Structure formats: C-alpha cells, structure tokens
C-alpha cells in the first residue's frame, strides 16, 4: 500500500470519528484522583452515571498515583497552566490548598455562582468542619472520609477471656501484655499511621490541643502543643510497651496493616477505610472498636477527626465548566447515591440523610464495623481541639513527628525530649510555611 493511501484511510477514519461526535460540544471536566482497586471502580462508575444522566458535561476521571503523587501532579499541572477541574486531595493537604488563593475555587463560591441548590447543613458537620473556614464556608467537597478505629481479632481476645475490645488505654495495655505472653510473642498490639493515632487522634479524642489557634484552623501563625502532658504520658507508655513488644512498631504509614490480617498482631489501629481489606483477608473473627481513652483525662472521649480526602476545584476555569462541576457535586450529594457509595466502599456517608437512610435500612446491624467511625466522629459536638487540623506542610510534618516518636520508641530519647524536639522542629516548619504563603 502506498503511503499516501494509508494517510487517506487514516484521514477518512478521523473524519468518521469526528462525524460521530454530537454537533454540540460536550464540556469535558477533568477529575484527578488517587483511588485504587474497588474505590477506583466506584470513581469510574460515578463518572459514568453522571455522564449518562445529562449530555452537556463529561467528567473524565484519571488516576494520578497515591495521594501525595496526585497532589504533586496537580501542583505541577497548575504551574504549567494545565490543572484539572477537580482534584482529590488528602485531608493533610488542606492547608496547602487553602493557602493557595487563586489556585483554587472555594466550593461554597462555586455553588453560589452556578446557582445550584446547596445547603451546607445537609452534610455531617464533623466532616465538613475539616474543610470549612471558621465562618463555616465550605472550601472543598468531602469525598471519601474515614476515621481511625481499633481492629481486633476477636478469636485472640477470647484466649485471654475477653468478649469485647478494651475501652481504655490502661485496659488495652493490660490485654496486650497478656496476648503477648500468650499466642502473640511478636506483637501485643500495633498501629498504622503512627502520628495520626498517637498525636492527632489522641489529642482530639482527649480534647487537648495539638496546636494553638484551634489546631491552626484560625490562622497560619499557630504553634504546636504536641508536647502536652497527655501526649507525653501516652508516648511514654508506648515506649515502655515497646520494650517487651506489648506494643510493636509497624512503621510510619500503613504498610504494617498486613500484620493484623496475617494474624501476627491481634490488635491493630487503622483507618476505617481498611474495612474491605479486613473483610477480604482476615481468616479469624474480627471487629472494629472505638479508640481507647485515658479515663483520668476529664471529658474523654471527645470526638475523633477524619482522614481521607476531599475534592478541590481548581481556579482559572471557564464559568461554563464551573457550572458543570457544581452540577456534578449536586449529583454526588444525592442521598441514594451517597448511601450506596458509603455501603459499597466503607467510607463514611457525607450527608446526614445518607447516614439515616443506611441506619433505617438496617445496614449497620449487618455491618457494625462501619458505624464505629461515625459514632466516634459524632460522639460529642466538636470543640476547638477536635474540629480538625490545618497545619501547613502537614505531610512532611508527620514524617518529622514520626522521626521523634521512633527515637522515643527506640529508647534514644525520653517521651518528653522527643515531643519537645518534635514541637521545636515542627514550629520551624510552620514558620517556613507561613513565610512561603505569606508573600501575598
């Protein structure tokens, strides 16, 4: 075949393809996300359903790697002028996105401009609080929310005569000591996301501040208070328990979660979003329980804070595109859709109606593990200390805190020394962020 013929055929093919698309241009809305596995399927299904429900807009979901990679990809794209319309950003990236004024379009503004019906009160305040300004304006749209729960191997608990999970930290340490002396010599209990449990959730759950200015919600000039008595006592307890593996460290992130499903650690703290992993892999009786608390701390337990991610709308797009994004968010907020999303992925429902619907359907009678994080989150009305965190550079800050906790667990520093150091170094990081963001 002569090359010219080939070219002609290709051109003809292109012409056909062009003719096949409808005459009215469909506005494409790029949605970058970090969801894998079953959650990726859920994202694609949502986009398909939305695209089928109307003909003006087409949501195009693209997987961009893990949360950190997705955020970096979005930042790089913004700098190159090719940012997506919607970006899924993990909760700890909130301060970074918030302080990028002009790079993002606040959700409340978006909904108002587009004239979409939007009632912030329809959403669970414990979730939206994390993503709202102090005056209650919602900046990003909560997508997948989780909280930290205690996953327990109920078969293992039976071996030490317990029928339900320990409720307080002293009880937990005692139970873990027995488990370690029994069938679990390597690990009485452990945790994933070491700083999320032992500093962030611990502080909120005991209603003590992690940082001033309502944990940074009220301003970039917050300073850390992670070296308070509650945190110091808890880290000291952990370090003591590490000595005989009553507690055994499993790393900074969530790669250690396999130690629970493999049966090595009978108690493991982890995201409620691990529900699918546990259900699919645990070959023993299991349950989710609320995080323990120290009974001598007044008011404990307070309420937990969320993890997971929200959808940010990027700035500098056309009004018509924003209209499409607003319509998509309305679509996502639909009660039936939210309830279904919650029940299939295990992430929390973001609207009250979806929660009530799931409850009325008896969903939690069959899946009690999925109600635990909601109960933790709504245990009490949030205080300044338990609404959420908004600290600059939090992803790297977590690494810094983990470094110091590791030093304490290894016995190189006392808990007090480690947390003092973590606060000093963390404050330097906060000041750096303030300087970088403050140029505007």
């Amino acid at each position, binding site marked *: 075949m002569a090359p010219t013929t080939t070219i002609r055929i290709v051109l003809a093919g292109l012409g056909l393809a062009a003719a096949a698309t409808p005459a009215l241009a469909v506005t494409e809305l790029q949605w970058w996300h970090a969801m894998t596995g079953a959650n990726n399927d859920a994202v694609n299904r949502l986009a398909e359903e939305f695209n089928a429900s109307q003909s003006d807009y087409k949501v195009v979901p693209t997987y961009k790697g893990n949360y950190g990679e997705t955020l970096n990809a979005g*930042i790089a794209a913004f700098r190159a002028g090719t940012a997506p319309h919607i970006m899924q950003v993990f909760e700890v990236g909130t301060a970074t996105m918030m302080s*990028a004024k002009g790079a993002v379009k606040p959700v409340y503004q978006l909904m108002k401009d587009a004239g979409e019906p939007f009632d912030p009160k329809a959403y669970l305040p414990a979730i939206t609080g994390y993503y709202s300004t102090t005056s209650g304006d919602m900046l990003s749209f909560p997508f997948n929310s989780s909280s930290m729960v205690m996953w327990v191997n109920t078969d293992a608990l039976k071996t030490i005569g317990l029928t339900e999970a320990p409720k307080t930290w002293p009880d937990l340490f005692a139970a873990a000591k027995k488990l370690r002396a029994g069938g679990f010599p390597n690990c009485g209990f452990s945790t994933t996301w070491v700083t999320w449990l032992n500093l962030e959730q611990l502080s909120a759950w005991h209603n003590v501040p992690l940082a001033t200015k309502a944990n940074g919600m009220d301003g970039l000039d917050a300073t850390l208070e992670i070296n308070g008595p509650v945190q110091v006592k808890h880290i000291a307890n952990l370090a003591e328990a590490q000595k005989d593996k009553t507690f055994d460290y499993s*790393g*900074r992130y969530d790669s250690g979660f396999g130690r629970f499903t493999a049966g090595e650690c009978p108690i493991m703290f982890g995201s409620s979003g691990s529900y699918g992993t546990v259900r699919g892999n645990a070959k023993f009786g299991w349950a989710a329980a609320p995080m323990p608390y120290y009974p001598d701390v007044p008011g404990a337990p307070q309420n937990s804070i969320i993890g997971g991610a929200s959808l940010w709308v990027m700035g500098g797009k056309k009004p018509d595109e924003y209209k499409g994004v607003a319509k998509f968010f309305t679509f996502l907020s639909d009660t039936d859709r939210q309830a279904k999303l919650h029940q299939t992925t295990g992430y929390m429902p973001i609207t009250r109606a979806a929660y009530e619907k799931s409850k009325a359907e008896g969903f939690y009678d069959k899946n009690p593990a999925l109600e635990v994080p909601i109960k933790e989150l709504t245990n009490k009305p949030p205080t300044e200390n338990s609404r959420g965190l908004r600290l600059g550079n939090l992803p*790297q800050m977590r690494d810094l805190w983990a470094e110091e906790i*590791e030093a304490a667990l*290894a016995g190189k520093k006392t808990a007090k020394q480690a947390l003092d150091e973590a606060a000093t170094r963390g404050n330097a990081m906060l000041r750096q962020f303030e300087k*970088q*963001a403050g*140029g505007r």
Partner: protein
Amino acid sequence: MSPERVTFGGWLLPAALIAPQLLIVGLFFYWPALQAVWQSFQMQDAFGLSTEFVWFENYRALFTDPAYYQALVTTLIFAAAVAGLSLGFALLLAAMADREIRGAGIYRTLLIWPYAVAPAVAGVLFGFLFQPGLGLVARGLTQLGIPWNPLLDGNHALILVVMAAAWKQVSYNFLFFLAGLQAIPASVIEAAAIDGAGPARRFWTIVFPLLSPTTFFLMVVNVVYAFCETFGVIDVLTHGGPGRATQTLVYKVYQDGRIGADLGGSAAQSVVLMAIVIGLTAIQFRYVEKRVAY
C-alpha cells in the same frame, strides 16, 4: 601526537556534527542545573503563586540546620559502605568467574542480571526478605538470636539500605572488572606463576595494579551512584528513618522538595549536592588517578 589528524575545512560541518549532542546536554543537563541555581535563591509557595528573591536565605537556613550535617555524615558513611561493598564483591566474583570453568558463560550472564532490576524493585525485594516477623532472612536472624528490627534500630536500617543499594551495583562493577581481567595478558601471569608466585601474590602484585584504571573508573561511578541514584531504595525501604538514620542528602532533597513543597530549599540542597559530587570527582581525578597505571 596522532599520525593522522582529521581536519575539517570550515566550522559549519563540525558544528553541525556536535550540535545534537550539545543540544541534548544543554537541554537535559545545563538548563535544569541553571534552573536549580536560580530556584535556590528564591522562596516560593507550592503553587508558584508568590515568588520572592531571597538571596542566600535558603543556603543560610541549610547550613544552620543540624539535620543537614547529620544527613551529610550519613551520606558519607552510606557512600563509602556501598562503594566498598559493591566493588569488593564484584572484584571477588569477577576474579572467580575469570577462570576456566565449565559453564562460565552462564555464571557471568546470571551475575549481570541484577543490574536490570530497578532500584525501587531491588528495595521491595530486600524489604520482603528483611521484614521483621515475615521476611525469610529476618526470621533467620531472629532465630540466630539477633533482634533484627530495622523499623526502630537505625543501624539495622542503614545496613539494610546499604545492602540493597550495593547488591544492585555489584553486577555493573562485575561486568567492568571481568572485561578488565580479560584484557590482562595471560603471559604476564603465566610468567609470574613460573617464577613461583602463588595465586594470591599474582593477584595483588600483577592483576590488581593492572586493573587499577578499571577500579578507578568504577570508584568514581559508584560514589556518584551512592550519592545521587539511591533515593529509590531508601524511599521504598525506610523513608529515611527510623529517626533520620537513613536520611541521605539526595533523599532530603526529595523530602523537602516533593513532600514539603519547599522548592527553594530543595534547590539549594541540590546545588550543594552537585558541588559535593563535582568536588569529589575532581579530587578522585587529581589524587587517586596519579596512582593509576594505565
């Protein structure tokens, strides 16, 4: 002086001939390097919305940070260990494989294979083997009474990343050593053997000195590798921890630049790292090369 020197009539043809090479080097090396230098004088937020020229502020912050000096020391230990281990093992293996043995070709091919493994994959492999409680090697160590725990023991973690980084480089070094060994004329060695020199003596007095150009070249390559290309292994295995026990200079560049979104500070670190590597290479050429017998 070369007997036949090729000369070009004008400057146009030679310029055209080297242009593609210059273009690639300029585009992919000098331009980004200059960008890094420029960035290192700036302070910027993640999205590039506000940029401030801060002169040497990033450098000042760097050199007053104790963590930076700690990373420098870690890097020196790490690089010396990686280069030493990978060169030593490769030389041993090459000396063994250079002999007349049956199936030498198969051994040689197998020994070269690991070089094709990406650093991150090498990291994952070692991670599995040495994972406390689950890994094959880790369980063996525990049974021997060694409380192996790279998650909390900084020395264990450093040993782990050194092994993973060196393992990958052994193949590369092996290839060059083997070629170097095969280039040594057999007659010299045979003559020594006839004079009554044993294998060890033959190796140290004849083979090793004759191999010195290869060793020197590999030393430079390995040090640069350990300084600049080992970030994947560290990221997969330890994330720089526990504490900051495995935080090397190049890993800190990544942490501050990508995770911390501090482009100015990260760029300043890159520039310093670049200067260190250039300096080290220059020192190696200046002093070590003098002892090399070409």
